[in-house]
């Protein structure tokens, strides 16, 4: 089941897609999920496992297509996950949100990726503000 995690977690972003760019291999989706499963409470672990099962089999029960999420194109997989995230059944939505949160934990772990999102305020120097007056000003 842990191998499904790589399929589903990476499915939230489309490699080479627009917006936040992630280089191939930059995100350790599997490691991120493993970390979560190792640290999570029993309820959290169960939630991730059931969520993965639902997401992998969703082409069948959601679209009536006899295939798994692993066999979809990256764009179709992302569309499937987006549909599940706003599914009419509360418990499907919630489990998908949990998977998305685990995916975000893996995605934002590399400092370089986090920096690219703009979440943090740039350091004053990087914003063009000088912390100290220049020598010429002092002189």
């Amino acid at each position, binding site marked *: 089941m842990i191998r499904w995690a790589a399929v589903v977690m990476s499915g939230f*972003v489309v490699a080479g897609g627009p917006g936040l760019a992630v280089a191939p291999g930059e995100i350790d989706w599997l490691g991120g999920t493993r970390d979560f499963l190792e640290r999570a409470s029993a*309820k959290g672990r169960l939630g991730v496992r059931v969520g993965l099962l639902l997401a992998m089999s969703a082409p069948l029960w959601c679209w009536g297509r006899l295939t798994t999420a692993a066999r979809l194109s990256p764009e179709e997989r992302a569309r499937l996950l987006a549909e599940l995230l706003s599914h009419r059944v509360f418990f499907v939505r919630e489990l998908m949100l949990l998977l998305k949160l685990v995916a*975000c934990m893996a995605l934002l772990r590399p400092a370089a990726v986090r920096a690219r*999102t703009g979440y*943090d305020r740039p350091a004053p120097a990087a914003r063009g503000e000088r912390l100290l007056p220049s020598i010429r000003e002092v002189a």
Partner: protein
Amino acid sequence: MAKLVDEADYVIVGTGAGGATAARVLAANGASVVMVEEGAHLRPEERPAALLDAMRLAVRDMCMQATESRVPMPILQGRAVGGSTAINSGIVWRLPDDVRADWRDRFGLGALVDDDALERVFSAIEDELEIHPTEPAILGRNNALMAEGAKAMGLPGRAIHRNTRGCEGNARCLQGCPAGARQSMDVSYVPRAIADGARLHTGCRVERVILKRGRAVGVEGPGFSIRARRAVIVAAGVVHTPVLLHASGVRHANLGRRFQAHPGVAMVGRFEQPVHMGFGAAQGYEIPQRARGFKLEALALPPEMLAARLPGAGAAWQRRLADLGSYAQWCGQIRMKAHGRIRRVFGRPWIAYEPTREDLEKAREVAVTLGRLMFAAGAVEIFPGVAGFDEVVTSPERLDALAERPVSRADFHLVASHLFGTTSAAADPAVGVVDPSLAVRGAEGLYVMDASVLPTNLGVNPQHTIMGVVWQAAERLAERARAAA
């Protein structure tokens, strides 16, 4: 492994707002005190920034504790030295006058919440914990935008009064303050009690208060046993206090009942100007709306949570992620009317709690108000987070449709962190599990000193009220002990 054995005048279970305050007062009055805490003692520099590690170390069940219901509601509590104060935002409000009058008139708690006495106690706590309005320099845009929205809508907002010393504005309160700036109990009253001679045992989950012929004589759990010469004070929080008392043989018709909360809804909006949620006080601005039954607050999220809150997956989501610095998040805490119940089932808490229809209508009102506020502050789009309604709203007019929409529980993402009741105090023995001195009825030498004794919810953030009420009760306990000696 050798069994841990200890003994003190007072054994206090839990080191949150209630337990730490009791320890601080009793130790300062010369009593010998032992604090027993299930969680770990995390020093500020050990506070991890990564959400997963922070949740594992300090939050009960890693945020998975929830109500037992078709639509579960997460019930957040800390599990570390400092209890929930170790992961809270440091917001401070005094007990509102109308609630004080209600407790005096309906629950006979006039002496416990006497105006003059509370004035003195609140002032002392405010001095010791350095309570003051959030400084403009560390407000950050997430808070400042809410101030702009409040001004545009003519709503009475203010900078939040918090218990901080040297806040760096790194928006990490909910992961635990890495600067030791927020004066949560782990950096304030717990060390102060220790300086006055108290001892602290961590990683010790109390499973039973030992009652001998109706008198509490100690506590025990796996690998430890601690004897109490004078009293055991249970301060394990609203969910675990009734469970522990029940496991110890305490029985009362209202034990675990009257559970109340301030569940919250949140909304994210995108602004054209950078917000950079990663800078600023995690919660630095608020708009109290007590007459309407709720309170709005700016609430910074860790980046992983903010990213997960942005709608969609794939290209549309990725575009938003590239712009994560443009989002603000605000929330509303609702003073709900619902009453729930905590029971002990297979040794664990079972939380039954369902918002009423009126509560859900209030949640809708909060969502609509937050949306209007965001547009008033200049948001270009908002994500209401109401299931079945538009994922993205780009004009305030569209919120009229949300205001008219029938409500259903599954539409709202409610989360509760302000909890009350379950071991209510009252003068009437049929109502109060504890009496006005916070002594457990039907047992001797057993007290409850945490949020579970508050007989109703407040409509404001609770930690100051909990500390004030506990301070009062602990001081009287110390006085009685002195008089008896």
